């Protein structure tokens, strides 16, 4: 289940399938769920992830060497979605692995694996449009992205194709580096809200509790991804999950 509009802030976290390893992915997800995370992106590793920064690029390179793929992502999703029915799993991928699998078949398999939505940064709305009906039928929510330089008319167009939530890229650039949540950001969020009632998920640069405080009450979801993968890489999945638990508590307590 996706959050509803005006719900209190939820944290979404991340898993690069195959990083640190396919076996560890399962434990890592158990850890995230125990930490209170209810929204998890499963990233299909890709050789050329152009919207990602160094942390996720390096995780993708390692994941590929360890058997990460679209099919491995489906296999993982089948297991963890059954084990954690309270969690919403979203598939994040670049288009080519999905395209090679065959788009209609890929949508069917995504649905069968218990995945509720997809985020594909290099799949623009016009190219996705012919497949929207099929996604609707199978209950796979297309979560499209808007960015600070997206024109208002296009925000409306992208929002009308999106389901579940709208992904709001917080700033110009790739995933990973930090963001300034100033007045400009508030204006941007207000502009997006003019065009949609979908819950908003803000991502690209949510790294600290302060970032989460800045987003509380303004949007429904904060994507806490690169920082989690960095913790995972440096300290292991268990310690990373402990830190995520603190992150979740910090927004519940405040």
């Amino acid at each position, binding site marked *: 289940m996706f959050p509803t509009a005006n719900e209190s802030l939820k944290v979404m976290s991340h898993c690069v399938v195959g990083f640190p390893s396919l076996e560890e992915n399962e434990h890592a997800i158990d850890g995230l769920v125990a930490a209170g995370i209810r929204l998890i992106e499963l990233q299909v590793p890709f050789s050329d992830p152009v919207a990602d920064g160094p942390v996720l690029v390096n995780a993708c390179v390692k994941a590929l060497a360890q058997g990460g793929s679209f099919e491995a992502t489906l296999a993982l999703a089948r297991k963890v979605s059954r084990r954690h029915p309270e969690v919403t799993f979203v598939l994040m991928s670049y288009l*080519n*692995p*999905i395209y090679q699998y065959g788009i209609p078949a890929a949508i069917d398999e995504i649905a069968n694996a218990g995945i509720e939505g997809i985020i594909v940064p290099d799949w623009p709305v016009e190219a996705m449009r012919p497949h929207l009906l099929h996604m609707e039928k199978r209950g796979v929510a297309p979560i499209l992205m808007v960015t600070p330089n997206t024109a208002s008319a296009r925000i409306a167009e992208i929002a009308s194709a999106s389901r579940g939530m709208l992904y709001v890229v917080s700033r110009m650039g790739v995933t990973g580096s930090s963001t300034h949540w100033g007045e400009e950001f508030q204006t941007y969020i207000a502009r997006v809200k003019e065009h949609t009632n979908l819950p908003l998920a803000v991502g690209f640069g949510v790294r600290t509790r302060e970032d989460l405080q800045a987003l509380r009450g303004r949007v429904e979801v904060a994507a806490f991804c690169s920082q989690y993968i960095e913790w995972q890489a440096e300290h292991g999945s268990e310690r990373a999950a402990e830190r995520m638990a603190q992150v979740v508590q910090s927004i519940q307590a405040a």
Partner: protein
Amino acid sequence: MISSEQGLFGEFGGRYVPEILRPALCQLEDMYQQLRSDETFWQEYLQLTQEFSGRPTPLTALPRLSELLGGAKIWLKREDLNHSGAHKINNVLGQALLVKRMGKQRIIAETGAGQHGLATAIIAARMGLQATIYMGSEDVERQYSNVFWMRQLGAEVVPVNHGSCTLKDALDEALRDWAASVDDTHYVLGTACGPAPFPELVTYFQRVISQEIRAQAKHQIGALPNAVVACVGGGSNALGAFCDFLDEPSVRLLGVEAGGRSQQPGQHSIRLHGDLASPGIAQGYKTLFLQNRNGQLGETHSIAAGLDYVGVSPVLADLVARGRVDATSATDAEVTHAFQLLMRYEGIIPALESSHALAGGFALAKEMQPQEHVVINLSGRGDKDIFNIAQALPQQEWLDFLEREVARTEQRLKESAQCPNGEEQYVSNG
């Protein structure tokens, strides 16, 4: 001249980019549509290529090699005589005029052989722009002379250390930079690949090559050539050489890809012929990619860094699919042989990239009749390849020279450490 419907060429092309890059591509598309119908822009462009790069480049007959091979009469289109030593400058000069119109202060580029990076660094120096060049770390090693020159010209060269450490990774990194800097930065894409409008835009600027071949052939041969041959990395020099002959069915068009060491995965860069590559969507566009069945882009190899690319121009992919352009490949060994032939018989030192066109062109010429004419596009000169060639044709004399050179450099560094103003002294000493 080619043109597309929404950036599509048959089933190839398009614009599959993260949303953040879309406004810049739309702006570029608008500008391109404006200037296409603006004859004064083309004149401004031609003037710049003449005054800065030395166009038109000559069409040179190869009498000794034609006789040796015993087939068609062979001609070279001398893109190697451009300023900076390759056809890449044609595109860079065109995009520089766009940068001027857009008022942006910074340019970025990806480069494989370094020729595109060098051309970009040159134009940045001339226009007073800041330049950042992304280059696979493997290519940095292979083409260090170009890295040296780019840095001397004031550009920042950033080695890319992940993936296959070659051109495709440099292209990814340039796209990532652009996503963060698109407000004040123009991405000078170096070949007829990537998201629309780049494939068409780059072809538009390289078209000057075939315009000149046409006029020169009329004058020097008295007719259109029977065949035009070019190497294919991304495909920009090939499209430039083919462009104005697309509507001339009597002119055979042949693209030569890098056959590398073998046709095993990772040992070549053959995308257009055979069934080694398949349609895919990556790096912002749809084309034939070398990839595995999971849609992960593959490793490539070529003796020539500039042909070592995993995708290919969507324009060329479509022309090959429609049967208008033929594709073949030359192995590293065939390329080295063609390289030596041109040097020994005609006194011209070609780039290793261009030597692929020579290998394919020589083979084609042999099959043709003596009254026929084949034009081979010599996309660049071989200066940058001196280290690669010295390795391909190892000689004790070269090794001895390198050892002396290392000793000299160490001595220099020691002296400049003792004398902190070494750099100033170097400049004043000339």
